[in-house]
């Protein structure tokens, strides 16, 4: 295979040794971002060329994989999303409410028996479609956390946002993804709805009940979020979370 002699330049060899082990991870995420193999290959190649160009700027001892992902994220935004940065709006209370509707009305049997095998029949294509239905920023945190296994802090570095924002997006992204999967499961007959919702003790039950809208059947559409309106759910000053950086945890992150 490759030998050092291939390179007249030592940096090229070092870079290849450091970077090539991550090519599959980067390709996997690139494919989920661009949704096709040709664009994914172009994105990964451009990421590697940029990373090589700026390799001397990489700080030894910091996370190289996260650094590569950050370059890829920036490249993606520059190349593919220029036209799509118009702000949109998500109704977050609608996400919560529709999730509860799906859980309680359509699938209380899941709550009672979460180990059941009903999801096994779902097509891979449906799972992919459910992921693609998430607004981009939410899809990214779910991919980076649940598929690539990055920590909140690494994701915050990759996406250039506070850890609290990562946690809020994870919470909502996972919730939207679950809701969509449950909706598909019902729509395509993998599960059957049951009439009576499971009763949960809830603060809402203790206060005056808000009047709930009659919901239409089927999927709920969610628009892209408007960046400046994104509410960060998880901020504060207590020590409710164990994050890698103790100081950061003390200063910034905890449930209100």
């Amino acid at each position, binding site marked *: 295979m490759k030998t050092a002699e291939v390179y*007249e330049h030592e940096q090229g060899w070092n870079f290849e040794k450091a970077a090539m082990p991550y090519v599959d991870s980067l390709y996997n995420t690139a494919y989920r971002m661009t949704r096709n193999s040709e664009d994914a290959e172009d994105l990964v190649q451009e990421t590697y060329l940029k990373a090589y160009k700026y390799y001397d700027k990489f700080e030894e001892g910091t996370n190289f994989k996260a650094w590569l992902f950050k370059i890829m994220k920036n490249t993606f935004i520059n190349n593919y999303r220029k036209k799509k940065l118009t702000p949109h709006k998500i109704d977050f209370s609608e996400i919560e409410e529709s999730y509860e509707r799906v859980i309680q009305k359509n699938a209380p049997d899941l709550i009672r028996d979460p180990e059941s095998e009903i999801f096994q029949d779902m097509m891979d294509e449906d799972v992919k479609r459910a992921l693609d239905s998430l607004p981009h920023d939410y899809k990214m945190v779910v991919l980076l956390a649940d598929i690539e296994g990055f920590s909140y802090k690494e994701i915050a570095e990759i996406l250039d946002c506070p850890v609290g924002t990562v946690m809020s997006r994870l919470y909502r992204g996972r919730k939207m993804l679950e809701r969509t999967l449950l909706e598909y499961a019902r729509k395509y007959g993998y599960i059957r709805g049951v009439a009576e919702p499971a009763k949960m003790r809830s603060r809402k039950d203790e206060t005056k009940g808000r009047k709930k809208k009659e919901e239409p059947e089927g999927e709920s559409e969610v628009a892209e979020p408007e960046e400046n309106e994104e509410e960060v759910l998880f901020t504060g000053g207590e020590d409710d979370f164990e994050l890698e950086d103790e100081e950061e945890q003390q200063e910034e992150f905890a449930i209100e």
Partner: protein
Amino acid sequence: MLCDDVKRIAYFFLDGTLGEQKKNDFSAHLNLCPECEARTKLHRRLRIFVRNRLARLTAPDRFKQRLMRTLRAVAAEWS
């Protein structure tokens, strides 16, 4: 801890990132509340399901070869 609190932090419990006190409160609640226990299991199950189904794609070999050739050509050019 009420059901609403549990719902709010269930994902973070599963991530293993809750502080000691919150983690204990969370577990204590699950022992008393079958609904929250089932809901938390559902979150865990769906997460594993998604991870398994979105099987990690590997970059095609011909692409890896091309990428290495390109990197070597660029390295040679810049040296």
